[in-house]
């Protein structure tokens, strides 16, 4: 395929870009998929069969640290000492007077961060899309849950989601394509704790195959989805959407091409996409349609860095909204020792879930929900080395005895919750730091408000209560958002909305001004949801936008 044959350029190949490439190619359009990173070979690259598997988490081929910068973080207050990150072995994890900027966790590669996700495939709580209308907080989505539902179904079918037969919070027009996974033994113990407290505990919705499907084998419960799935049973977009897009014969994939800027043209159109590869080659790609899907940090950055004629403050920034309304998923994890051998290094990382506090009004003191799920794998306490360092510590005869007694007894529970947008959380361009192509780095401004701390405190207290009710005795480690930015799930920066004065794209994720520019990632989210993992919603939105683009293309509107 030569560039002259291309209908659409998709920039970025994560959940949004991968789903978009699928949607467009299956509508008959020809797509060029540009990915800054390399591709991964699941069997070769994910070394889970190696003796040293535990030493590395995900085998990043492109280093992610330092790809963004952080603005000075907010001061820590002693008011929040009860929700600081700490370890019984090493004490406070954050030593300084300010919140730490640990990391924006992501993957640069074909498939994006779905390569390292746990496969959680959540639909948003419908009320979380109506925060402004119902609760006078945050912002509303300019589309309804019902409008998105058919695309949720498609995304679940294509990735192969296993889930429970009932979902009281999120109406379904069809069942999940696969039955739910049986809970691990450790999750069964957590279920006992929830039952004692009167909380529900149900199978989680997971893009991990509970039986063979789509030519892929079922999961064998190794607990290490975060390190990459060598079996391909996890529904990362490289083995689902992108594979299907490629099989259509209408998708050209170029890995190792870093987009440096978008060139604007006449009639409010993006005229071209400029990109460089590792060999120093620089190309100008042209297509009728441009879809940006680089994530909630990199998408605003690229648009801001593309300032030029007709867009002096960045593309899509006529009303100063670009980069605004950035949000992070608020998180808390407590790990504790259970007196009973659990074999907690086994099973899917997040196989069960408590949705009881997921609705935005679940708690009377603040707006925004949260959820609870197992987190032993998320905490990376599933192998001997981390037990030795973080659970047992010490050395010598007592260390060896405790290792033998302790291994497999850690029970971790995590909680993710809503963050409402605030004026101090946003993305801009770093005034001093640039990447190897000379493009300014994205600079993350992260700020928590009183409601965020209140929600975190609730999440921490319920996490500890569930663990205690489940029989866990000694807390060994806790960490959370109160004193550190350490987020995979980031949102906003190119908000979706009806009013150009408060948003960047419309309900179809099309730029309010730039007629052939669409965005397909979590940067368009007006709200984060109450702890739902965003990948499925990103995919569903991309499929919906892809359908809109295909229809417009047929009408020759693009």
């Amino acid at each position: 395929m030569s560039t002259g044959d291309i209908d659409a350029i998709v920039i970025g190949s994560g959940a949004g870009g991968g789903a978009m490439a699928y949607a467009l190619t299956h509508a008959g359009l020809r797509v060029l998929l540009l990915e800054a990173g390399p591709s991964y070979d699941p069997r070769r690259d994910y070394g889970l069969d190696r003796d040293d598997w535990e030493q590395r988490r995900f085998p990043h081929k492109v280093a992610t640290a330092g790809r963004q910068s952080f603005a000075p973080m907010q001061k820590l207050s002693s008011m929040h000492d009860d929700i600081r990150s700490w370890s019984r072995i090493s004490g406070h994890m954050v030593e300084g007077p300010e919140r730490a900027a640990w990391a924006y966790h992501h993957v640069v590669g074909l498939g994006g961060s779905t390569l390292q996700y746990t496969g959680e495939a959540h639909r948003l709580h419908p009320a979380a899309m109506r925060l402004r209308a119902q609760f006078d907080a945050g912002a509303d989505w300019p589309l309804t849950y019902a409008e998105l539902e058919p695309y949720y179904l498609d995304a679940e079918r294509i990735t192969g989601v296993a889930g429970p037969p009932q979902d009281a919070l999120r109406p379904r027009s069809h069942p999940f394509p696969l039955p739910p996974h049986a809970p691990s033994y450790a999750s069964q113990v957590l279920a006992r704790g929830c039952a004692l407290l009167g909380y529900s505990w149900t199978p989680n919705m997971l893009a991990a195959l509970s039986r063979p499907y789509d030519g892929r084998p079922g999961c064998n419960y190794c607990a290490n989805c975060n390190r990459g799935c060598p079996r391909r049973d996890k529904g990362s977009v490289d083995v689902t959407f992108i594979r299907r897009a490629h099989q259509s014969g209408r998708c050209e994939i170029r890995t190792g091409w870093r987009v440096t800027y978008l060139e604007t043209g006449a009639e409010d159109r993006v005229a071209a996409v400029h990109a460089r590869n590792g060999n120093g080659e620089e190309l100008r790609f042209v297509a009728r349609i441009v879809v940006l899907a680089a994530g909630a940090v990199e998408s605003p950055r690229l648009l801001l860095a593309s300032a030029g004629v007709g867009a002096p403050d960045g593309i899509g920034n006529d009303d100063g909204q670009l980069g605004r309304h950035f949000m992070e998923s608020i998180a808390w994890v407590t790990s504790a020792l259970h007196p009973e051998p659990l074999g907690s290094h086994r099973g899917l990382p997040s196989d069960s879930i408590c949705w009881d506090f997921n609705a935005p009004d679940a708690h009377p003191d603040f707006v925004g929900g949260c959820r609870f799920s197992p987190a032993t794998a998320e905490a990376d306490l599933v192998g001997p080395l981390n037990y030795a360092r973080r659970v047992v510590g010490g050395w010598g005869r007592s260390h060896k005895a405790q290792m033998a007694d302790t291994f497999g007894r850690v029970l971790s529970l995590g909680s993710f919750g809503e963050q409402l947008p605030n004026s101090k959380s946003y993305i801009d361009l770093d005034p001093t730091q640039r990447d190897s192509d000379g493009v300014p780095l994205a600079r993350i401004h992260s700020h928590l408000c009183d409601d965020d701390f209140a929600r975190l405190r609730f999440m921490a207290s319920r996490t500890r209560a569930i663990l205690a009710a489940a029989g866990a005795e000694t807390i060994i480690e806790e960490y959370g958002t109160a004193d550190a930015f350490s987020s995979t799930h980031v949102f906003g920066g190119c908000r979706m909305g009806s009013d150009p004065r408060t948003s960047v794209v419309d309900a179809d994720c099309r730029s309010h001004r730039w007629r052939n520019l669409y965005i397909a990632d979590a940067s368009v989210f007006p709200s984060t949801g109450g702890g739902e993992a965003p990948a499925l919603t990103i995919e569903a939105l991309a499929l919906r936008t892809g359908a809109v683009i295909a229809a417009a293309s047929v009408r020759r509107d693009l």
Partner: protein
Amino acid sequence: MDGSLNSKRRALLKATALLSSLRICPEPLARMLMAEFHEPTLAAFLDTLLPAGHGPGASDVGLGRALLAATRDHDGYREFLIRGMRWLDSAARNRGAENFAAASLGEREAIVRSCERAAPDAFEHRLFVQLHHDAFTLFYTDPRSWQGLRYGGPPQPAGFPDYAKPPSGKTE
């Protein structure tokens, strides 16, 4: 006597480093150096950190040799190790033993504990921190060390198909 190496040994080390950089049979020489002067001390130190019992100990899995092999291209690390082993032998002599390896387990543990509790910038503390980190990494990524833990990894290719059941007494 935990100071720098004497000039003869330093010259030999430099020669070894040179040979190493030229890739002319460097390992036997380096091994000779360690074997002649310090390998028993290193083995005893590692066995003090990770003794046999509740599964194999450091010597059972050849941890000393593994550590030397893993660091064979790192001349600075070798010098650090040799200096450290000299420090341990000296500390043992101060307690009346012939050297660290010949000291009783209790004496060895007391010496290691003194390293652990030394000031953060003290050489012996840095020795403890570095070797503790490296030894634990190598030990717990050796499947033989998993025998005492009821752990049947690595995670793949078998996975954990019994994940929904309580763990049995065997390795899972």
